[in-house]
């Protein structure tokens, strides 16, 4: 059996002011080790068939059923919110909003709803996104242990 390499495209949501919300959140929140963790998970998402990786993507709430999140556990529990598409639902994911988890509660609490708002904005304005970039490149000056 020949193995076909999977390649999923990932994008970052940009708000009306042109800010890449995920990159800004990562710069303010994540330490370098956490960036490594997050980049590792995103590489797996991009390069591996999703049914191979058990429980890589988690759903959020019933009201925000299109919003998924990655789970990255460490000193900070990282929960970036994303969705399939929004243009090609089979081969694309878009990061919509950055969140963390503390005491089993999301920070900010309304992260799935805010991610859903961004998704709706993206559906209306498909240009409000850009190709996802690795965090390491964009985190010069971020907190290092």
């Amino acid at each position, binding site marked *: 059996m020949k193995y076909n390499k999977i390649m999923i495209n990932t994008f970052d949501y940009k708000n009306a002011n042109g800010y890449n919300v995920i990159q800004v959140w990562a710069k303010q929140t994540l330490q*370098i*080790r956490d960036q490594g963790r997050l980049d590792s998970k995103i590489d797996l998402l991009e390069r591996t068939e999703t049914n*191979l*990786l058990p*429980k890589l993507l988690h759903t959020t709430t019933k009201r925000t059923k299109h919003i998924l999140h990655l789970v990255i556990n460490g000193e900070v529990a990282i929960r970036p919110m994303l969705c399939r598409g929004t243009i090609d639902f089979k081969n694309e994911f878009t990061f919509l909003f950055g969140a963390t988890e503390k005491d089993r509660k999301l920070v900010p609490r309304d992260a799935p709803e805010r991610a859903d708002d961004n998704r709706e904005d993206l559906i209306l304005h498909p240009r409000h996104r850009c190709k996802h970039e690795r965090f390491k490149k964009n985190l010069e000056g971020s907190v290092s242990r």
Partner: protein
Amino acid sequence: MNDLKKTLKEAFQDKDYRHGYVDEFLNAYIATQIKVLREQHKWTQKELADHAGMLQPRISVMENVNYSSWSINKLRKIAEAFDLTLHVSFESFSNRLAYIENFNRINLERCFFKDDSYFKESTEYAKVRELPEAPIGTNHSGSTSETSGFSTLGIGQARTSGTSGTSGTFISAPLAIQPQNLIYLADYNREQTQKQTKNKPNPEQINVSRQINERNAMIGVTR
């Protein structure tokens, strides 16, 4: 060098980053391999749990890519259930890059013991060794039938040193024709030759004793 490898080569210059990245990858690697091996066996989580002496929810947790509290004892149990061996080793980052680059289902699958051709061959060699010692010039092939999947490999008319004037041995054994089997058969042949040489009296000793007997006869000495 592919894009990911090139990117990681640069990003891994930072110690915190590379350790964070690889920690997360390792968790995903182990969890995914347990799932892949279970599916290779066509087992449910419950069946794997029964073979490993664990509970099904524990298997479910271990198959979660986000699980990180691995225990070597638990992994040993899983390895035994799959009839595989657990390999724990410290690795350089350059070696780890190869795992990251080639992470896919096929590379996670393993050959289980029952399908391991190396051990199948070994069993066939053991059968050859158990055969009764054949007199010189006879052929074992009459007493061994061909096993399906293995060809009968004959070492034809191999003349053995120290047995000049006699016919050579012919060993026919049901073994796959592979380099390692040729070594097994060479060993087997050498053993047979040594046995034959050991049983046969040395021609020089025969000559000396004959000369002594003749001289004794001439001088009238009798034993």
